[in-house]
């Protein structure tokens, strides 16, 4: 299970790799513009570029395979090897969150829960997420405003999001799927004690 400071590293890694890739593209553009005043026979250019392309193709293919191999082992779908310690039912509705411990046997429309819930730290929590009307997205933010986990809240379906809260504090729930006019005001809170 990844603690949230590791997840923050995922965002940082995304930033650093994207910046480096962008810088490489800019460097290639500048190189092409500044060297274009020289004239060289097309066959000779082709020979040079194709040689480089062969190597690039080989390296890129390896990177793609390695990238897939590593990242496909870090899926957010089923994180826990063992059974969760707590199950929480989450029902999204226009425009509030209903949250309550346990598995509910009521229909999403009849389910009763609160916008606020308290859960223990250091436990494996499974959120059983659905919606009583339209699509929403159950997104958990830590107190620093970092998005640490999310899943869609869909009518007719139950998405199971598993998360381990290693740190105590207040975690806010925001909706990350456009669900109508007050979408940006659909807020909930999880207290981790």
């Amino acid at each position: 299970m990844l603690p949230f400071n590791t997840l923050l590293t995922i965002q940082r890694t995304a930033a650093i790799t994207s910046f480096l890739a962008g810088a490489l593209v800019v460097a290639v553009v500048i190189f092409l513009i500044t060297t274009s005043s020289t004239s060289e026979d097309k066959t000779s250019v082709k020979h040079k570029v194709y040689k480089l392309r062969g190597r690039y193709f080989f390296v890129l293919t390896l990177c793609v395979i390695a990238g897939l191999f590593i990242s496909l082992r870090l899926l957010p779908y089923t994180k826990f090897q063992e059974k969760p310690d707590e199950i929480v039912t989450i029902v999204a509705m226009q425009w509030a969150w209903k949250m309550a411990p346990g598995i509910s046997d009521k229909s999403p429309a009849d389910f009763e829960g609160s916008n606020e819930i308290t859960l223990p730290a250091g436990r494996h929590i499974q959120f059983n997420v659905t919606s009583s009307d339209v699509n929403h997205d159950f997104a958990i933010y830590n107190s620093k405003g970092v998005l640490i986990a999310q899943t869609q809240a869909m009518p007719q379906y139950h998405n199971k999001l598993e998360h381990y809260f290693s740190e105590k504090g207040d975690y806010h729930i925001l909706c990350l799927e456009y669900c109508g006019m007050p979408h940006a005001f659909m807020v909930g809170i999880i207290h981790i004690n």
Partner: protein
Amino acid sequence: MIQLNPAEIKNQRRLVIVWSITFLIAFPLLIVLGLLMRLNQGEEIKLGIDTFYVLMTLHGLGMAGVLYSMAFAGLWYLISTRYVRLSVATGYVVYFLILAGVTGLAYATLLGKFGAGWYLLYPLPFKGTFWPTWSTGLSIISLTVLGVAWIIGLVHVVYALSKEFGGFTNLLGWQYLGKKEIKRELPPIVMITTISLIPGLIAFLAGAVFLIMNLMQYFEPTLAFDTLLLKNLVFFFGHTLVNITLYCCLGWVYALLPEFTGREWKTNKVLVYSWNATFFFILFAYFHHLYMDFVQPLPFQYAGQIASFSSAIPATAITMFGVITQLYHSKIKWGIVPLMFLLGVAGWAIGGFAAVVDSTIAVNAVLHNTLWVPAHFHTYMLGGVVLFILGFLFYLSHTKEEQEKDKTAKFGFWLFVIGTHSFIATFYSGGLRSIPRRYNDYSGIPIEATHSMGAFLARLALIGIILLLIGLMVMYISILIKLGKKNNTTVIQAAEA
């Protein structure tokens, strides 16, 4: 090469000019909608929440529709004046149907207050709406009209090409894979057109199914369709539309860049393998939009990431290295057209990389529906597709010498590029700081750091948007002055030469 008489060329040129003028009017208006949205998010103006989402819907639908339509119109012109005779009448039918669809959408949003977002995520258009029911109906019908227009256009092009080049498989370049002698060379633009438009056809049909189901729901409110199925349909449609818009423009780059470098760019076995692989990547990459739907079957989630990652191989190793082969030590004169194409390819590369990052399931879990998403698609649409389109418009309006000497246009171009990337940088920063997308403003977020950073970045974005708008207007002056003047046959003669 077909033999066209000057009257036929003149008619096709008139058609593409009608398209171009329409694009030139619609595009900045749609940018202004985006500017208003960022002003509101920056808390500089106070739009009603309903107005914000109306603007968001029109901005998204309008941009996707206008950019694809212009990309298609450019392809139509290049193909109809070089490779196969296309019916001008059909071209106008497509144009007027699109105009009708766009007018319907503008009416439904601006007057009917329809604000379900570009994707009408089922069942949102029917539940808890702030707009009247008729505007939902009008939007669905208008989108259907657009879809019909696009299908008529692409079927006409692919059918005409198929007849001209001796069958559909020849358009995919399969004759290059055997040992038989090639009787007629296949221009890359023809292969890329086919490989873009066929997934386009499949996606538009999926979109049609989605719209018909919505229309049924509209007339019979007690119906309840499967939400996951409809989500798959709409993202398959939307993702593919945007994806092929870019590929249509790349077709022009393959056709036009050699005219400036003097180096031919021909179809060969590697190019055929590469683009045929791309055909499948276009079809399967859309699954990456549904990673956060945990109930989606796992093989689809894998397919989304594998297709998205793999698409980088042909894109960079073949097309981008192809551009390098064209330009390196080419003694090219850097007129505005090749500059636009080079910087457009760069925008595609940067946006494409950011897309691959977001298509990693583990990363998507913390970037999905944050500002990272508009960041990457604005990079390859505004920093890629729009530059290709503007490059094409300069090609259409300027002679080769004129586009080399037009210093005012080049000034506008650099202003546009700097503005675009500064504006997009605020989206990337927002995504990395978990700022949600599709928020009318950030005042409802109880985390102060997120609220203040979201508003600050929105205000910062205004500088970039204003710069890019000024750059665009400077280029407009140059394009519009020359568009009416240029000798009709110059472009074609230059191409044949």
